[in-house]
C-alpha cells in the first residue's frame, strides 16, 4: 500500500497551550479576589464593576470556559490529529475557532463586570455572545467531523468518542438553555419562566459540568494517561461501558440541583435516582484511569506529570462519589445553599480539571518545543503547592458548609431559632473564609511557578514545526458480514454522532415534555400578579448587580426555614419570573419573603442598607451599593420590556406599554414620599427606587388580595 505524507498542525496546539496558561492564571486571580471579598468587603473596592455579584460569574466563566475550555481544545488538537492520523480538516477553521473563542472570553470579561447578564448560572452571557458561542462551537464541530471523515485510522479510539459527545451535547444544551427574547442588544428575557426555567437551567448547568468539565477531560485522560505512563489503557471494554453509560445517565440528573424546591417531586426523584446510578460509570472511568498505571506506580514517585494525573483522577473519583451523596435528599438538606457545594465543585475544578491540565501542560511543553522540561524540581514544587492549596481550600469550606447548615437549623428547647438573625451565622464563618483565601493563594502561587517553568522550557527549545508523518490511506468502508457492532460503529462517525445525540436527548425529553404539558405540575395561584413596571425594572437591577449570587429566593419546606423566612415557596409564585432567580448559594439570607411578614422592612431601611449595609447590619459582609442612590434610569426600554414579557405569556393588556411609564412614575412617587417621611430626599428616577419596589414585592404573591 502506498503511504501518504502529511503533517500534524502543532501551531494550533501551541496557541491553545498559551491561552490555557494565561486564562488559568486569570481565573485563579479573580477567584482569589472574590474569596477575599467575603471576609473583607473592602476588596469590593466600592465600584460596581468589581463587586462580588458581578465578579463571581466572571470567575466561574473564566475557570470553566476560558481555562478548561482552552485546555480541552489544546488537548483535543494534539490528540485527535494523532489518533486519526490526519491533519485537521481545515487550518482556517482551526484559526477561526481559536480567535473566536478568545474573542468570546474577552467579551465575557467586559460584559459580566458591566452587569450585562442573563442571570442563568454558567450561562450568564447575553444573547449576542450566546450566538457567537454557538457559531464558534459549530466551527470546532465541523473541523472535528471533517478531520474524522478524512482520517487514516479506521477505528475511532475512545478519546474521540468523548470529543464527539462533548461537541454534540454542549451544542444542544447551550442552544436550548439560551433561548430568550431580546429586548435590546445587551438585554434579554429567558423563554422559560419559574419552575420550567429552573428545570431547563439545571439540566444545562448539571450537564455543563458533565459535558464540558467531564467528558472532554475523560477523553484527554484516555489519551494522555497512557502516554505519560507508557502503558496501554487498562480496559478497552470498560471504556465502552464507561462512555455509553455515562452519557446516557448524566443527562437525567439535573433536577438534583433542585431538591426540596418548588419543582415537582417526580422530577426531583428522577434526579436522585440517576445520580446514584452515575456512581457506576464514573468510578468505572476513574478505575480505568488509575489502573492504566499498573506496573508504573514506581514512576509516580519521580514523575511530577504522573503525580498531577493520579491526584486529578482521584479527585474525579471523590467528586463523583460526593455528587450522588449530595443528591440524596437527607444529605442535600444539609449541604444545599451552603459552602459545602463550593468545596465540592472545587474538588472537581481545581483537582480534576486543574491538575489534569497542569499534567498535560508539563507533558506537552517539552514535546512542542523539542526540549526537556526546564525544571522537574519546580514542577514538583507546583504539585505540592497545588495539592496543599486544594486541601486548605476545601477543608474550611466543608467545615463552613456543615456549620452553616447546623446553625441555620438550631432551635432552643422552647422551639425558637438559636440564631434568628442570619448575620450571626455569617460572622461565625469569617475565619474559615480567610483560610480558604490562603488555600487559593497557595494554588495561585503554584500556577505562577508553572508559568515561569513553561516559559523557560519554551525558551530553551524551538517550536517544533508541523510534524511530518506518513500513513496508509483509509480503504473505503465496506460492510463485512459478522463484523462486530461497536467496530462497525467506530468506523462510521456520523452514525456515532447521531446515536450519541439520541442517547443524550432521551433524558432531556422525558423530563421536559411532562413538565411543559402537564398542568398539575405548576398549580396556579390566583393572587399572583405580574410585576408592575417599576418592580420589573427593579428586578432587572437585581439581576444586573448579581444579587442572586448570594441571596436565594427559594424557601424550602423545613421548619427551620419557614420559622426564619416565612411560608415556603410555591411553584405558582414564579410563573412570571423570566428568568427564575432561585439562586444556588446563601451567603446572605433568602429574600423570597422580603416584602411580607416579619421580614418586611421600611423603604428607608433598604435605602440606607444599599448605601452601606453595615450602617443597618453592623458586621455585614455585603458590598456597598452607593451608585444605586446616584444613578438615574430613563426607562427608555420599558415599553420593549413590557412587549417582550407579553410575548412570553405575561398577561399585560394590549397597549399597556404606552401607559406603563405613567404607572411606573406613580409607584415611584409613592416610594419617594415614603422616604421623605424618613428624612431622605431623592427623585423618582433613581435606580434605588425601582430596586426597593422589587424587594417590597417579593413574597406578596400569596397574600390575600
Amino acid at each position: 500500500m502506498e503511504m501518504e505524507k502529511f503533517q500534524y498542525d502543532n501551531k494550533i496546539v501551541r496557541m491553545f497551550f498559551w491561552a490555557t496558561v494565561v486564562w488559568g492564571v486569570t481565573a485563579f486571580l479573580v477567584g482569589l479576589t472574590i474569596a477575599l471579598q467575603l471576609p473583607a468587603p473592602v476588596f469590593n473596592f466600592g465600584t460596581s464593576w468589581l463587586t462580588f455579584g458581578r465578579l463571581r460569574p466572571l470567575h466561574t466563566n473564566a475557570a470553566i470556559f476560558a481555562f478548561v475550555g482552552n485546555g480541552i481544545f489544546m488537548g483535543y488538537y494534539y490528540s485527535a490529529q494523532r489518533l486519526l492520523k490526519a491533519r485537521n480538516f481545515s487550518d482556517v477553521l482551526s484559526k477561526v475557532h481559536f480567535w473566536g473563542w478568545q474573542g468570546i472570553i474577552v467579551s465575557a470579561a467586559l460584559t459580566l463586570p458591566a452587569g450585562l447578564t442573563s442571570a442563568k448560572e454558567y450561562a450568564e452571557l447575553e444573547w449576542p455572545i450566546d450566538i457567537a458561542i454557538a457559531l464558534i462551537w459549530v466551527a470546532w464541530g465541523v473541523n472535528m467531523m471533517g478531520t474524522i471523515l478524512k482520517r487514516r485510522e479506521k477505528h475511532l479510539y475512545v478519546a474521540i468518542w468523548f470529543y464527539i459527545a462533548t461537541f454534540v451535547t454542549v451544542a444542544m444544551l447551550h442552544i436550548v438553555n439560551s433561548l430568550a427574547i431580546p429586548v435590546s442588544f445587551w438585554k434579554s428575557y429567558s423563554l422559560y419562566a419559574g419552575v420550567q426555567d429552573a428545570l431547563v437551567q439545571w439540566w444545562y448547568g448539571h450537564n455543563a459540568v458533565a459535558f464540558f468539565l467531564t467528558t472532554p477531560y475523560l477523553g484527554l485522560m484516555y489519551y494522555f494517561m497512557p502516554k505519560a505512563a507508557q502503558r496501554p489503557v487498562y480496559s478497552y471494554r470498560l471504556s465502552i461501558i464507561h462512555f455509553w453509560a455515562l452519557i446516557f445517565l448524566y443527562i437525567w440528573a439535573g433536577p438534583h440541583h433542585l431538591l426540596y424546591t418548588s419543582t415537582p417531586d417526580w422530577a426531583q426523584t428522577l434526579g436522585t435516582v440517576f445520580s446514584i446510578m452515575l456512581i457506576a460509570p464514573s468510578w468505572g472511568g476513574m478505575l480505568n484511569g488509575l489502573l492504566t498505571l499498573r506496573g508504573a506506580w514506581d514512576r509516580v514517585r519521580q514523575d511530577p506529570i504522573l503525580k498531577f494525573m493520579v491526584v486529578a483522577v482521584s479527585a474525579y473519583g471523590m467528586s463523583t462519589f460526593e455528587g450522588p451523596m449530595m443528591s440524596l435528599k437527607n444529605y442535600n438538606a444539609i449541604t444545599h445553599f451552603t459552602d459545602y457545594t463550593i468545596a465540592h465543585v472545587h474538588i472537581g475544578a481545581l483537582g480534576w480539571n486543574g491538575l489534569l491540565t497542569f499534567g498535560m501542560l508539563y507533558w506537552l511543553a517539552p514535546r512542542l518545543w523539542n526540549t526537556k522540561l526546564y525544571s522537574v524540581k519546580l514542577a514538583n514544587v507546583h504539585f505540592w503547592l497545588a495539592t496543599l492549596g486544594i486541601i486548605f481550600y476545601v477543608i474550611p469550606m466543608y467545615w463552613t458548609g456543615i456549620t452553616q447548615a447546623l446553625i441555620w437549623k438550631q432551635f432552643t428547647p422552647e422551639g425558637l431559632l438559636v440564631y434568628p438573625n442570619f448575620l450571626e451565622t455569617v460572622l461565625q464563618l469569617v475565619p474559615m473564609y480567610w483560610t480558604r483565601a490562603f488555600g487559593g493563594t497557595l494554588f495561585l502561587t503554584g500556577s505562577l511557578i508553572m508559568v515561569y517553568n513553561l516559559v523557560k522550557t519554551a525558551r530553551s527549545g524551538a517550536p517544533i514545526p508541523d510534524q511530518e508523518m506518513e500513513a496508509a490511506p483509509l480503504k473505503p468502508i465496506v460492510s463485512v458480514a459478522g463484523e462486530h457492532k461497536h467496530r462497525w460503529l467506530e468506523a462510521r462517525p456520523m452514525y456515532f454522532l447521531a446515536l450519541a445525540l439520541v442517547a443524550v436527548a432521551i433524558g432531556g425529553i422525558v423530563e421536559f415534555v411532562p413538565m411543559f404539558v402537564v398542568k398539575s405540575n405548576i398549580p396556579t395561584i390566583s393572587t399572583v400578579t405580574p410585576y408592575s413596571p417599576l418592580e420589573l425594572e427593579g428586578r432587572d437591577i437585581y439581576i444586573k448587580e448579581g444579587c442572586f449570587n448570594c441571596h436565594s429566593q427559594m424557601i424550602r419546606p423545613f421548619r427551620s426555614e419557614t420559622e426564619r423566612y416565612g411560608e415556603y415557596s410555591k411553584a405558582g409564585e414564579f410563573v412570571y419570573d423570566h428568568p427564575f432567580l432561585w439562586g444556588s448559594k446563601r451567603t446572605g439570607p433568602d429574600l423570597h419573603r422580603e416584602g411580607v411578614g416579619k421580614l418586611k422592612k421600611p423603604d428607608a431601611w433598604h435605602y440606607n442598607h444599599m448605601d452601606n449595609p453595615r450602617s443597618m447590619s453592623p458586621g455585614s459582609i455585603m458590598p456597598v451599593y452607593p451608585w444605586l442612590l446616584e444613578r438615574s434610569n430613563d426607562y427608555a426600554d420599558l415599553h420593549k420590556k413590557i412587549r417582550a414579557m407579553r410575548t412570553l405569556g405575561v398577561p399585560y393588556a394590549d397597549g399597556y406599554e404606552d401607559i406603563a411609564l405613567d404607572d411606573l412614575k406613580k409607584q415611584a412617587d409613592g416610594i419617594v414620599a415614603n422616604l421623605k417621611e424618613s428624612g431622605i430626599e431623592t427623585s423618582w428616577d433613581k435606580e434605588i427606587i425601582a430596586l426597593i419596589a422589587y424587594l417590597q414585592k417579593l413574597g406578596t404573591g400569596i397574600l390575600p388580595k
Partner: protein
Amino acid sequence: MLSRIYQGAEGLQFFQGLSLVLFFLVFVGAIVMIVTMQRGHIDKMSKMPLESGDDKNNGGLK
C-alpha cells in the same frame, strides 16, 4: 407513582413504557457488545495512543 404524574396528560402515558424499554435496550445492548468483542481488536484499540509517533522525546523526565 408514575401513573399519578401522568394523570391528566392525554397521550403521554407511552412515556412510561418508552423510558423503561429504552433503558433496558441501551444497557443490554452495551453489555452484549462488549462481551462479544474480539481480543485482537481490543488489544489494538487500547494501544492506540502509544502508536502516534511522537514518543521520541521523553521530556527529560524518564
